[in-house]
């Protein structure tokens, strides 16, 4: 199955409605979709539910997908829009949800790292939460998922200039919240922990 392209899998699924082909698409893309949703909603259970919702939407719409765009682009667009819908519905409860979120320990790290990461995560989440969904999405797509601004703009169906502006705004706001300045250490691999963020 590794040699079969997404396009072929889609064609086969459309022709046969065999769930096997769909499941193969899920296996290929579930990690990326879940990783895209997770930093948007801050809660593992919600991220799982939304990931599931995204793939069910794919079933609903796959027959109408014209394959002009790459399947992955189309899929991520659904994921981003699903996040927008979710954030709109749960705007008021978002903070409560986040606080109820179970901690995700970094098992590879020692206790000191664990405490440091927890504190850092909390600050990053707070900063991310202060961003509007579109700014959050811009930073998730470009900074975390390494998409180019053009790719992110294509995915969000907005002008490249708009996406530049969103990334710039998001970066500025995050920088202000996290106290990150150019040239300053930004990760644990950097200079001192006190200066890390």
């Amino acid at each position, binding site marked *: 199955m590794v040699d079969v392209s997404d396009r072929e899998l889609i064609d086969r699924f459309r022709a046969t*409605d065999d*769930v096997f082909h*769909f*499941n193969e698409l*899920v*296996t290929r893309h*579930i*990690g990326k979709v*879940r*990783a895209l949703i*997770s*930093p948007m909603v801050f809660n*593992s259970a919600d991220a*799982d539910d939304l*990931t*599931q919702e995204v*793939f*069910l939407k794919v*079933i*609903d719409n796959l*027959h109408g997908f014209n394959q002009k765009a790459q399947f992955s682009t189309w899929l991520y667009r659904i994921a981003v*829009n699903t996040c*927008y*819908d979710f*954030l*709109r519905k749960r705007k008021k409860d978002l903070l409560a949800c986040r606080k109820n979120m179970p901690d*995700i320990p970094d098992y590879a790290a020692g206790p000191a790292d664990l405490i440091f*990461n927890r504190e*850092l*995560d909390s600050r*990053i989440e707070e900063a991310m939460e202060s961003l*509007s*969904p*579109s700014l959050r999405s811009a*930073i*998730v797509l*470009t*900074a*975390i998922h390494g998409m180019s601004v053009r790719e992110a703009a294509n995915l969000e*169906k*907005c*002008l490249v*200039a*708009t996406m530049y*502006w969103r990334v710039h705004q998001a*970066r500025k706001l*995050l*920088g202000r919240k*996290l106290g*990150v300045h*150019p*040239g*300053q*250490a*930004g*990760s644990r*691999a*950097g200079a001192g922990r006190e200066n*890390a*963020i």
Partner: protein
Amino acid sequence: MNNMAPMLKEWAGRRAASKDELRRLAGRIAAMAPARIRRVHDRERLPCRLRFVQVCAAAAAAAIIAFFTVWHLADMGSALKGEDVFAKIVFTGGQITEGRRLFGEYERLFFSQLRWLAECDGEIKLGVAPVPEKALGAEAPLYYRLVVVSRKHGKGAWRPVWSTDILLRPQELVRLTPGCRDKSSVALWIYPFADGKVMIDANMSLDIGRGITYRTSDILSLGKPGEVTAMRFEDREYRVFQTVILPGRAS
């Protein structure tokens, strides 16, 4: 991204699901997939005729509203053909009320999925797609007007040669090909600031004269027209103006 990207990547990495978790999640989806596929089949087979009737009804309603809209907006356009052409680039109170009513009607018709509405060359164009969260919060659409005026070089009165009105949600990207002008294209995005100013990103290619093409990123005060560009082709001069209002916000 400098140092921010690695830090965010690490943060996202710590939040990532393990392989086992992903496998379980994929299993959950796989378990639900067959029922969903059946549902899609049922939806496609059974109510086909019903859906056809629904689509026809919606199309008919849209056509009726479009007729009245064109009628009204044509009237709006004719208001520009006066002596004081620049004063009439701005929206009047009546046009704002009418615009709000039309946008509301189309919005109801398309179940709150209306992203923008534009009048170009006597045609109504609509952008219909699920509206994201950021836009639904906005109380009213922005009103954008683009007017191209022209005169013989150095003499005569400026007269409007083309105009378009676009009602759009804040931060909504509008892309359209105006009516009968195949070579024209309009791309527009507007972001309203809290201080009564708006940022307008526009990428226009208008089939007027030998072609008016420009790409701008302007900051404009709400309600105050601004000149976007000016050019001259042989003995004719052209100037392009734009204005934006957000009803309910002081201009």
